[in-house]
Structure formats: C-alpha cells, structure tokens
C-alpha cells in the first residue's frame, strides 16, 4: 500500500479528455473542464488572497475588496455585471475566506463570453473611488452587524477564534471588524488591489458545456493581455505545531447549556498524509453514527448532545470533540469525560476493513454527485489547485482515497488525535432560567 501511495504521489494527474489546464505567459492559471451534459456553465476566478494574508495595515481588506469589485470598471458601469448575468438567467456572487477570495458565476452557455470579458476587465481596470468605498464601508458594516454582532453564536465563534489563535493569521474573522472597515482608505484599497489582483495571483476555472479551445482563446484574448505584477501573499504558518493556549473559557448569550470542547490541530491540505486525514474525518464526522456521541450520550448518558466536528483550512484544520449539558455539571468533569471518550476511541473500534471500505464508498458517492453540478466541479478544481497545488487532483481524488490503507488512517489518528496537542474550551451561557439552575441536576435521574 505504501508503494501505491508513493506511486500516486508522483503520478501525473490527468485531466478528463478535452479539458485544458494551462499557465499563460502572464502567470494566470486557467482550467477548462468541458461537459456537454450540464445545462449551465460555472466560472470561478480564484484570487489567492484571503484574510490570513492581511497585515495590520490591511486588516479586513480582503472582504471589503470583494465588495468593491462589483463597483464598476473602465469598460463597464457599476451594476452592469450583475444586471448582465441576471438578465441571462444566471447567478453571480463572491466569497472571502481565510485563504482566498473567489468570484463565481453560473450562466447559460451563451452568456459565458460576457462573463469572461467583464471578469477580465475588473481584474485590472476596476475603478476604486472614494464614493464607492464610502458606500461599501457602510454596507459591510451592516453585514458585520447582521452576521456577527446580532448573532450570539457568531459572536462566540469570533471570540473563540481570536482567543485561540492569538497571533496566527487565522485568528481574524474573514469578514473583518467594524474598526478595520472604518480605517480603510482609498489609497490602502488601491495598494491591496495592485498587490494581489494580478493574473499571476489568479486562477480562472470554467466548467460546463463549452468548447474548450474557444474558451481558452477567449481567456487568452481577455485575461492574457493583462500584465503580471504585484507581490504574492506571504505564506501562512501551518496550524499543526502552532503554540495554542491549553485552555479557554468563554461566556455568551446562547441557549441554557454549557458546552465543553476538546480540539486537536490537523496538518495543511497538501501534507503527505492529507488523504488519510480526509478518510479519517469521514469515519469520525461524516456518518450516521457518530462514535463520540455513542459513548457520551448513548452509552454513558453524560450529555444532552455530543459529537465530533471537523474544520478545514488550507494551512491546516482541526478535529473538535464536543458535548453539551445543562448547566449543573462541573467544567472539569465535562472536559474529563471528553478526554475519556478520546481514550475510548483510541481503541479504534470505529476502524475496520469494512468501515474503511464504506467510508471510501461514501466519499466516492459524494464526489460522483458533486460532478453533476458545474459550480461544485469548478469549486473543487479551484480548491485542489490552491490548497494542494494541482487542479488535476479534482479528478483523481477517488483513486487517491482508494489507496489509503487502514494503517494510514490509524497512523493519522495516533499522530493528530492521540498524540496531538489538545486545546480545551468551555462555554457558559449568560442566562440560565431559574428552573434549570435549581433543578437541572435532576435531569440525569430521569433520562
């Protein structure tokens, strides 16, 4: 199995027949995946900059800039892009994460040319005006109030992210903060644009019913004319090995439960054992029967709810074991129960030849369904290129997952969970109803 893994690691990653994966002379990467059975074409422009690449002077700009990109360019007025796509029956949007900013559209085939021309124009010819910046600052501030400030769970996550990650670039909410937004100047926005919005920092993905050669010619005619330049993003340190605090206590206006969490960091998406980690996560988090919930809730009846969740980012991720109890249990007890659960899971009863085969089939099923949708396919291609360095991996995932052995999965568990540095978080609610405060301890007696 090891030999197979090594061979796969060095094997070329062939694209489907007719697909094109190329780097233009200006550094722009282009992947075109034709599929005439799809009714829509997805285009995605991946700009390889996210909130983790911001520094103290540009904090919040990745997200704010995503908004500014809809503000009009040399050849197209503000709103033209959205109106064009909508009138064609399509959909367009964008998202900013810690690792990237992505501009997405899905349109009927005859509208693709218009989308590509508009995307290319705004990549270098965007008009960053004071009036537009001022308006978008107000809009983003309302977005932050909506998504974070007025949502107790989101407030909690942002607080936890900051407290846990400290000085790591992933410590900051990708949406930025109100203070970040207010600090932004036109000069700062233009500098950000000049540094990152360059063909050599971008990847154009087109998937759906297109002629690949004609599509490539169109990308060369439009994006290909743009000069390279700027300065790439600084590298983000991996989460695995980062000195996290061992323990964290938080309080928020959540429903009346106390939540205990034990987390362990995972390696970057391009780590040699990343495929084994993917299968491990499927076995732990992607199935009907959650192995941690079975121990904590079903067998031991120590919590109202429990389970395992996964976090995935380009430079690492995490596995989080959690339990939620009424607010009568002591913090130390709740965290001890999670440690005992991890010890129990270390017996690896969840890992057998049969469960491994089932997990692989499940991943295969997911991928098979994903490939029917142009947008999902384009997203997978863009993500494999940026996160793992090779767009072709989108088409060889099944074989790579197939090569993962039971020993590979066990080794990933041992390294990252059994022997990994654990981070403990305990969350208390701000408001506990009188009845629960007084009588909640009775609950286990009657459950």
């Amino acid at each position, binding site marked *: 199995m090891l030999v197979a893994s090594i061979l796969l690691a060095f094997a070329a990653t062939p694209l489907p027949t007719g697909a094109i994966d190329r780097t233009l002379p200006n550094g722009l990467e282009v992947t075109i995946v034709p*599929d005439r059975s799809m009714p829509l074409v997805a285009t995605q422009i991946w700009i390889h900059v996210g909130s983790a690449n911001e520094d103290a002077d540009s904090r919040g700009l990745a997200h704010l800039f995503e908004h500014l990109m809809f503000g009009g360019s040399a050849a197209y007025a503000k709103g033209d892009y959205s109106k064009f796509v909508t009138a064609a029956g399509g959909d367009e949007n964008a998202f900013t994460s810690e690792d990237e900013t992505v501009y997405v559209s899905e349109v009927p085939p005859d509208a693709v040319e218009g989308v590509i021309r508009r995307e290319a124009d705004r990549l270098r010819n965007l008009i960053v005006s004071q009036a537009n910046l*001022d*308006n978008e*600052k107000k*809009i983003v501030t309302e977005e932050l109030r909506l998504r974070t400030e007025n949502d107790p769970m989101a407030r909690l996550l942002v607080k936890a992210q900051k407290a846990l990650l400290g000085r790591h670039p992933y410590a900051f909410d990708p949406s930025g903060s109100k203070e970040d937004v207010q600090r932004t100047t036109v000069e700062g926005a233009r500098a950000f644009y000049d540094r990152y919005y360059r063909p050599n920092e971008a990847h154009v993905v087109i998937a759906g019913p297109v002629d690949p050669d004609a599509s490539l010619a169109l990308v060369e005619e439009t994006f290909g004319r743009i000069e390279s330049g700027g300065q790439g993003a600084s590298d983000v340190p991996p989460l695995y090995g980062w000195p996290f605090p061992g323990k964290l206590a938080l309080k928020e206006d959540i429903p009346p439960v106390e939540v205990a969490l034990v987390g362990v960091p995972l390696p970057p998406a391009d780590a040699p054992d990343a495929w084994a980690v993917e299968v491990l996560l499927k076995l732990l988090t992607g199935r*009907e029967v959650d192995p941690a919930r079975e121990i904590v809730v079903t067998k031991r009846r120590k919590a109202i709810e429990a389970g395992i969740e996964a976090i995935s980012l380009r430079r690492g991720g995490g596995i989080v074991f959690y339990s939620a109890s009424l607010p009568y249990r002591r913090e130390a007890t709740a965290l001890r129960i999670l440690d005992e659960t991890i010890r129990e899971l270390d017996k690896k009863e969840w890992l057998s030849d049969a469960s491994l085969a089932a997990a692989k089939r499940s991943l295969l099923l997911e991928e098979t*369904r994903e490939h029917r949708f142009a947008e999902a396919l384009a997203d997978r291609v863009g993500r494999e290129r940026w996160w793992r360095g090779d767009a072709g991996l989108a088409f060889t995932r099944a074989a790579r997952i197939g090569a993962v052995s039971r020993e590979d999965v066990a080794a990933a568990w041992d390294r990252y969970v059994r022997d990994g540095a654990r981070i403990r978080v305990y969350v208390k609610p701000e408001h506990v109803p009188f009845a629960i405060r007084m009588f909640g301890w009775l609950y286990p007696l009657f459950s």
Partner: protein
Amino acid sequence: MALPALLLSAAALAGVGATVDPAAEVVAWTVDAGTSAALVEDHRAPTITVRIEFPAGKYSPWVRAHHAVEAFEHQDDDPARALKKRADALAAEVSLEVDDRAATIEGTCLSADLDALLALMKDVLTNRDYDEKELRRAGREQSIEWKGNDTNVSFRMHQSVARAMFRDADDPRRLRWEKPPSVETGAAALAEARDALVRIPGRVVGFAGDLTRAQAERAMVGLLPPVDPRAPEGLTPRFGPLVGAAERPKDTPIRIRKLTQVYFALGRDSLPWDDPRRPAYLVANHVLGGHFYSRLYVALRHEGGETYGAGTREEGDVAPGLYAAATFTRAPNAKTTETKLRGVLDVFHAQGITEEERKAAIGYLTGSRAFGRQSPEQILERYLVERRLGLPPGKIDADVDRAAALSLDEINRFIDDFYDPAQFTMVRAVAE
C-alpha cells in the same frame, strides 16, 4: 461492484462526452389504488436516489395529534443503532423528514447497492423498536433549542407575523411558529402512528438516476405495506381565515436583547401558487426584490448604503402565507430606512415597471430554469412539489412561459392591485 471497478467508473465520470438527454423528463405510472411511481432516468453517473413521499405533513391535524412527525423522523433510531449502522456500512445516505405537507424518506446509493438500500428503507419503515431514551433526549434538546429562539430575529418576526395574519389559533400556518407539545407517547403508539402514515393513499415512490423503468418496477415489489383505503380522520389541513389587512396592527414591534440593528418586514398575504395571476406576480416580484439590482436593492443598498440586504420573501404555497419586503439597518438609521422602504413600495405601486425591466425579468425567469435541471433529483423534486400541491405537471415552468406572453400593461395592472400599500403591515425587530 468491487471498489476498484467503482473507482474506474468514477474516473470515467468527468463527463466529457457523457451523454444525457438534457430534456430528461419524469415518467410516472400507477402502481395500485393508493400508490404511484415516478422515474427520472439519467445514466451519467452510477448513483440512484429513491424518494418515497407520504401525503401528510405538519399541516395535518392528524399528524400533530398523533405525534407522527416524531414517529416518522425517529423511526431509524433503534436502541442498538442497527439501522443507522447498516446505512453507514452501505455508504448510503438515508434521511427522514416531515415538512408542511408530506413525510419523506430518501435514500441515495451507488447503483450497485440499490437492492441493499431498498431493503434498509423497507426495514426503517417497519421498525417498531424505537429508542425511547433517545426520544426523551431529543425532546429535551428541542426544548433547549426553543429557548434559543428568544434571540433569533427571523424566528421572532415570523412568529409575530403568523399571529397577526392567521385568525385561528390552530391554523397550521400559525402553529408552525409555536412551541410544539412534548411527546408523552410511548414507542408502541409512535409505531402505530408511523404505520398508519405510511399506509395513507396518495403516496408516491420516486426514482432518480442510473436505473431503468424495469428496474424501478422490480424495486417497488414488496417495498411498502399495503395501502389502507380509509385515510385517518382529520388528515387534511384546515386553513382558517386570514385577518383582513384593515384589522391587522399597522406596526408590530418585537423586542430582542442586545440588537444593534432594526429589522423590517412590510408584509401581506402571499399570492397562491394556483392563482391565475401568478405569472404576472413572478415578473413583478423579480423587479421589486428578486435580485441584486432590484428596486429594493438599488434604493437601500447601492444608492445609500443603508443596508447589506433587501428583498422580498414569499413563504406560502397554494395556501396563502407571508409575503414581505424586508430589510434591516443600524438602529440610529431606522427612520431613514423605513421611509425609503415604504417609498420603494409606493413608487412601485403607483408607476409599475418599465419595458426594460420586464424584458430583463423574463430573461432571468426563462434562463434560470436551468438551475433546476442539473440533476435527475432536481427534476424529480420539481415533479413531486407540483404533485404535492395539486398543481398540473409542468405548471411551475409553464407559468414562466405565460409570464413571457404578458404585456407590460397586464403586469402593471396586477401591480396596481396586489402591491397596494394599504394591504401591507409592518413588523419590526428592535432592541429590548
């Protein structure tokens, strides 16, 4: 099929040169007096979805009285988790859901696993070994989650609108926003309710994906218990009268702790899906609040930065529900934003839409139909929605064709009637 062979199939999936009929349609047939079947055949990928729909949901008084929601959604929770473990071993996705009008079990698997999936679904639908401890735990969890609704802006606004709009306290459209009664029933009674639910006439078995009609017909054999022709009493939803616009409170404030924004919903009752004016509504709604450069978005976001989001929401079906123009803004800016929101509606009502807007809306409505035709599951779902609501097959798409045939005057006459500001009332969420 062995895994290596499946992996090869997946490698061939990339789709280039794959053939599919882009106009793949639903083939439907009658199985017995109370059961029908539907198939969307698509051999692009080696997967199959089986979706069995039973014609009773949360709107049904019988379902509520017999805790049939819990009975249906927890029927795969046996104490040993044997059914869920089988799903995991099969790598199948099996889900159980009761929505407003139907109870549905859906399973998806690789084509080679169809027989095993069908056997599992059959065992789920006949399982009587409910885990009573899990039911009690779920009830406790639901009760805690209910507390979270205190600070959930969307929930609180919906609840308030439902109380203002539907006159009867037991109207199902109102009850869906009220705390459900706790389940005191034991496993035997739940199994009985589930058994009755799955035998109600009018059920449909849908197949989508890599199988033929002959395979689908074979799959049906013995899959479901026989239909009981005597449908339970109280099965049909009873929708009470709406409170007239003149009687509704003109302004309902909801107070929620720690809010730093004010949320507005300027609402009325929605237009039923079977109303002949529906095509005109589709155009009007798109122009007013259906896209990123709609009237509401332009006035409230792009021109003044008052908000991050503005648009219309529609939550009814063939029974009228909520229709609202909604937005939000920072608390000190509430008055300005409310004035603009009302102003957009006033102008829309008074002036209607332009020919340019009409053309753009038709372009969107026509082109966007492709979003629902990307997978056989989507095509099947569209068929089932129309069937569930008693609409003629193809009605949803046909309404777009009818919309394209309407003149500007016809659309504006509809706007003059439906968007009369006197029909709309305001619900707002503000800081406690």
